[in-house]
C-alpha cells in the first residue's frame, strides 16, 4: 500500500522536475496521496528539489492546508470564516480542543479524532457551521459540542 503510494509519488516528482516553483505543488500532491505530510515524504521532496528540509517544513507549518499528522478516523472541521466566527465558532472549536485535548490541526493520540479549522465552506446561512466526516452541522453552539461528541463516542 505505502509502496504503491511511494511509486505514485515518484511519478509526481518526475512530472514536476522542470516546473518552476515545484515544492508547493509537490507538497499538495503528496498530501492528496498520503493524506498528510510525514517526515519521510517531506525529506524526499527536499532532497529531490535540493531545498532544505527545514524550508519544506517551514512551508508546511505556514499554510494551514498542510497536515503533519496522519488524519484520525473522525475529522471534525469547524469553520472559522467570518460569518461563522462572528456567530461564535471560535468558542466551539475551543471547546472541542478542550474535550479532545488537542490543538486545531492535530489528531488525538489514539488516532480517532482530528480537529481542524477551515475557511468559509459556503454555508454561511447556517453559521456557525462544522462538518464531521463531511456531514454538515449548522447553527451549532457550545452545547451542541457535547451532543456531537456523545454521538461519535458511542458510535
Amino acid at each position, binding site marked *: 500500500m505505502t509502496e504503491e503510494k511511494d511509486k505514485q509519488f515518484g511519478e509526481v516528482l518526475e512530472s514536476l522536475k522542470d516546473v518552476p516553483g515545484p515544492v508547493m505543488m509537490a507538497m499538495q500532491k503528496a498530501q492528496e496521496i498520503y493524506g498528510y505530510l510525514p517526515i519521510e515524504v517531506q525529506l524526499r521532496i527536499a532532497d529531490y528539489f535540493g531545498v532544505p528540509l527545514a524550508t519544506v517544513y517551514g512551508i508546511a*507549518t*505556514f499554510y494551514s492546508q498542510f497536515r503533519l499528522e496522519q488524519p484520525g478516523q473522525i475529522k471534525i472541521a469547524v469553520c472559522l470564516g467570518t460569518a461563522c466566527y462572528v456567530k461564535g465558532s471560535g468558542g466551539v472549536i475551543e471547546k472541542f480542543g478542550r474535550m479532545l485535548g488537542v490543538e486545531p490541526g492535530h489528531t488525538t493520540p489514539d488516532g480517532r479524532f482530528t480537529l481542524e479549522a477551515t475557511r468559509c465552506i459556503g454555508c454561511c446561512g447556517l453559521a456557525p457551521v462544522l462538518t464531521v466526516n463531511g456531514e454538515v452541522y449548522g447553527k451549532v453552539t457550545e452545547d451542541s459540542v457535547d451532543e456531537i461528541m456523545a454521538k461519535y463516542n458511542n458510535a
Partner: protein
Amino acid sequence: MKNINLTVNGVPVTVPEGTRILDAAIKAGFKVPTLCYMKDLCNESSCRVCVVEIKGNRKLMTACSTVVSEGMEVLTNTPKVRASRKITLELMLSNHHKECLSCVRSGNCELQTLANEYGCDAEKYEGAMNSYDVDDATEYLVRDNNKCILCRRCVAACNKVQTVGVIDAGNRGFATRIASPFEKDLGGVPCVACGQCINVCPTGALREKDSIKAVEKLLADPEKTVIVGTAPSVRAALGEEFGYPIGTDTEGRMVAALKAIGFDKVFDVDMAADMTIMEEGTEFISRLNDKNAVLPMITSCSAGWVRFIEFNYPELLPHLSTCKSPQQMFGAIMKTYYAKKIGVAPENIAVVTVMPCIAKKFEKLRDDECAAGAGIPDIDESITTRELARMIKNYGINFNALDPKTEFDNPIGKGSTAGLIFGATGGVMEAALRTVAETVTGETLENIDFKATRGTKGIKEATITLAGKQINICVASGLANARKIMDDIKAGKSKYHFIEIMACPGGCVNGGGQPIVSSEKRNLVDVAKTRAGVLYKKDKKDALRKSHDNPVVNTLYGDYFEKPNSHVAHKTLHTSYVKRNRY
C-alpha cells in the same frame, strides 16, 4: 559601468549603478541601521529599521534593498525617519525577553545598541509575549527564540552559505519562529555545529554552550595539572573583544592572560598542527604511491566539515585523512608523551583548548579520541575565543596592560608558522606542500610561498609538480563549496589528488567561536581576510616556517613517536569516522 549622482542629506555622492541606498549613505558619511540585512548574506527586507525618506516619495523606503537612481535626494535622519525606526524597535522589544543585564550579547547586541541610540521605551507597547523553551540539547549551541527578532540571518547562513539547512522560519503571524523540522531540537537534526549562525545573529538568541564553569572547576582541582592550548586563529581575533581593531595580533597578551588565569602550562596548538602536517603529509605520499589507495585525500582538521561528510556523504568517508585534528592531537600528545615526561598520570592531566570554533566542543566527545586509554579523553574542555574574553574580563585582568612579548611555555610549546597559517583557508594545504615537497624531493625549496592557496575565495585550485608528478590540489571553505567538490567526487568527475576543506568560509579565522562583528562593521571590513593577514604577516618574517624543521616535532618523533605513520603514531594521532543518519 554607469555612475549615478545623488545626494544623501544634501551631501552629493557618485556611486555605480545598482548600488543600494545603504552603501551610498555610508559613502556620504551617514550610518543607516540594519537588523535583517547583512552584507553578502541576508537581504530579506523584513525588519524595516533601515527606512529612509526619498524626496518626492510619500512612503518610506528600505535602504538595504532600494537601489539609487539619478538625481535621487535621500534623507536618512528626518524626524519622520527617526520616529518610524523608533516605533519599529519598540514593537520588536514588546515581544522580546529583555534580559540585557545577564545576556551574553549585552554590549555587543545590535538590537540593544539601536534601542539605546533611538531612545526607545522598552515597555511602550504591552501585549502578548511569546514564550519558547530554550533549546540547549546539544553540547555546543543554544537557541533562545525568546530573543529572536526573526531577521533570518541564521537561516541564510545555515541554508545558503553552508547548505546544511536545519533551520527555517515556520508558522505565521505572531506565532512565526525559527525552528528545525518537526520541532526537533538541534541534537535531532544534521546540524554540523559550525556556529556560523551565531556569528551573524544580531541578538543573544544564538550562543555557544558555556564551558567556562567546567574549566574553572578543573582549575580549582588541586589534583590536576591543567594545560591550555590555543588554536592558530585565536590570537588574530581575541583583541577585538578588548577594543583592538580587526586584524590585530595579540599572541603575547593572550598567553599572558592565560597564565594570569592560572593554567599550569600554556602551549601553542600550532605545534600539534605541525604534527598534523607530518602525519597527513606522510599519509598523502603513501596514498599517492599506492595504486589501490583512495584519492583524492581530504583533510580532516575541521570538526564541522567532518560532521558534514558523515551526515551527507558517508560513502565517501574513505577519502578523509585518518589524522586527528590538531586539537585532538594536542590532547593526545599531552596525555601520552608529555604525561610520561613530567611523570604525571594522564588521569591527573586536564587539557583545555581555546578554539575559534564551537564544533570542537562536539569533537572532543567523539569516539576514538582517547589516546591514553578508555575514559581518558584527549581533551577535557574546549572554550571559544569569545569565552576566553569573558573569562579575562571576569577575572579582572587588564588585557591592555599585559606584556605583549609573553611567550608560550617550553619545552614543547612552540609551533612553526606552517602550523600558524592553519587558521586561514588554504593554510593547511600550503603547510602540507612545504613539507611534502621537501620530503619527496629531498631538497630544500627555494620558494615556500604557495600563493595559489591563499585568499578568501571559496574554491581555489592549482597544479604543482612533485618529483616529476603533476599533483592537482584544491582548497575549499564554506560547506556550500565543499558540497560542490563532494558532488564531483561522487559523480567520478574530480580531477584532484589532495583537497583541503574547512567548514567556515575563509577558514578558522572566521570560525563560529570568534568575536562577533556587527553588520555595520561588516559593511566596511572583510573580516576573514583581515584576520588572516595577521597569520600571513607573521609567517612572512618568521625563521621557522616549515613543520618538519620544528625542533619540537623532531623531539616528539625522536623520543616517542618514532616516525610519521608509525604504529604508535597511528594509535595516538589517528582516528576513525562513522556514518550518521540525517533524520
